[in-house]
């Protein structure tokens, strides 16, 4: 319990961001700046469901953040896991979210380079049997120097299936196409380039085809587009 009160003692927390899943607070953990990611109770969920979701995602995320590192994908360090509070204490990663980066006036080359690297990292996760499960541009952080950092593995899981890999990439493509209209095409291409570089041509083609198939399952995709899939 000592460590619990240790965490509890640092409650001078500043709300950084109200996410969909959790609130992020900025604080300090044993002298280092830290992010307290607290999965708060959602009033819209019935109690039983709410607890189940919060608990399983918290524990899961801690594990996956570590496994991603083993796969060669930078993620924040996990300082502490607090079951009762459904809270993770994480290393604070300074930088710009990919989402904000893309909304700024960036050069095409710069965008391509980042997306290429993003593709490499996704490839690494997949090659190690990991699925991120929530690949969106607000879950990728660009520190001022160095490499991209992946955060938010709450929906992540283990799988080697082409279907799950395809869904992972499909989600990211959807975000580019619904929100980053200007860069969508370039980003998707560069991500896939990076992905291909890591997993190899044959596997990349398989996942790409599956992704197109998943896309075609969406509502009211016209027959012409289905044939391409």
């Amino acid at each position: 319990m000592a460590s619990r009160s240790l965490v509890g003692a640092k409650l001078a927390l500043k709300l950084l961001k109200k996410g969909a899943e959790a609130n992020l607070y900025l604080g300090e953990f044993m002298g280092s700046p830290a992010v307290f990611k607290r999965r708060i109770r959602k009033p819209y969920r019935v109690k039983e469901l709410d607890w189940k979701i919060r608990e399983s995602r918290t524990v899961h995320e801690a594990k996956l953040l570590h496994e991603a590192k083993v796969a060669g994908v930078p993620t924040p360090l996990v300082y502490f896991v607090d079951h009762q509070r459904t809270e993770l204490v994480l290393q604070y990663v300074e930088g710009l979210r990919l989402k904000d980066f893309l909304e700024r006036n960036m050069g095409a080359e710069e965008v391509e380079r980042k997306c290429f690297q993003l593709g490499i990292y996704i490839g690494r996760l997949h090659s190690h049997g990991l699925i991120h499960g929530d690949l969106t541009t607000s879950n990728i952080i660009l520190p001022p120097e160095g490499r991209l950092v992946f955060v938010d593995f709450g929906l992540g899981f283990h799988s080697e299936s082409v279907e799950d890999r395809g869904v992972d990439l499909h989600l990211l493509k959807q975000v580019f196409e619904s929100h980053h209209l200007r860069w969508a095409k370039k980003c998707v291409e560069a991500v896939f380039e990076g992905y291909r570089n890591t997993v190899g041509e044959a596997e990349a083609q398989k996942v790409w085809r599956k992704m197109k198939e998943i896309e075609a399952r969406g509502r009211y995709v016209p027959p012409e587009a289905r044939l391409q899939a």
Partner: protein
Amino acid sequence: MKLNRGEIICLGIESTAHTFGVSLVDSRGRILSDEKKVYAPPVGKGIHPRESAQHHSQASPLVVREALRKAGKTPEELSAVAFSQGPGLGPCLRTGATVARALAAYLDVPLVPVHHAVGHIELAALKTGASDPLTVLVSGGHTTVTSFAGGRWRVFGETEDITLGNLLDVFGREARLPSPSGPAVEAKASEGKKLVDLPLVVKGNNVSYSGLLTAAVRRLKKGGDKLEDLCYSLQETAFTALAEAAERALAFLEKKELLLTGGVAANKRLQTMLKQVAEEHKAKFYVVPREYSGDCGAQIAWTGLLAHLQGVKVSIERSLVKPRWRLDSVPIPWRR
């Protein structure tokens, strides 16, 4: 374009699925009439496209006449005729399109194609006053979280398989509730207490309901659970996934309005949940009024009028229906 004392009136025809609806609206956003007849499949069955189209074809003269009469307008006063060009069931769409073409050709006014889902969104925006909402559209045909950007409604999240309306309807049918069974499932659910463990699937910003349906139907067939508890658990599980998708979109896009529309928007439990999501992100919550949540002529007439004012029209030769027509492929020239 005919202008009658400065008044622009559009007649809209809805016929994507079980509803044949006709409505007249004017350019001040007044719904002058909104008439419909709804095809009801036998208990335990879904919509049979041919039967439904036959129903529409028989209903059409009556409904058109009634819509004109209630609005107090003559056909000559119409400025445009709009129709639901898609997406939907082919035979049903063709029936509505045929009526619309005949009217437009006879009256010599523009024929305006309308996307059914855009209709749900625009009518809800008209009735609630929402201006730039994150929209959750839930019906038998759609389960989509969408927002407007760059001239189109962009799909931020959606179902990866069946829709929410579909889920509730098919489960209800299996339980021998009358179809469309959303309201019956809701009534049963309100008496449920015990949460049965069913798969809750959230894939990033998307949801997936087919596994949930299979699991729920399996539990139903196995027996041992109260139907009330199953309906309750089905709703809670499905709505929780959707509420999370909506919340993700709200947090990501930082919109200040959340709009709920479509047939399933009439569900009180879903309304409560999404209202709580909106409150948590300090967004204003809007929900389409119940009488305009389901399919109706007004959604087509109003959207048709907005499109008509921007000069959108289609020649009869090119007015083929589009049973598959994605929301994010439709240009929306009247929104900025």
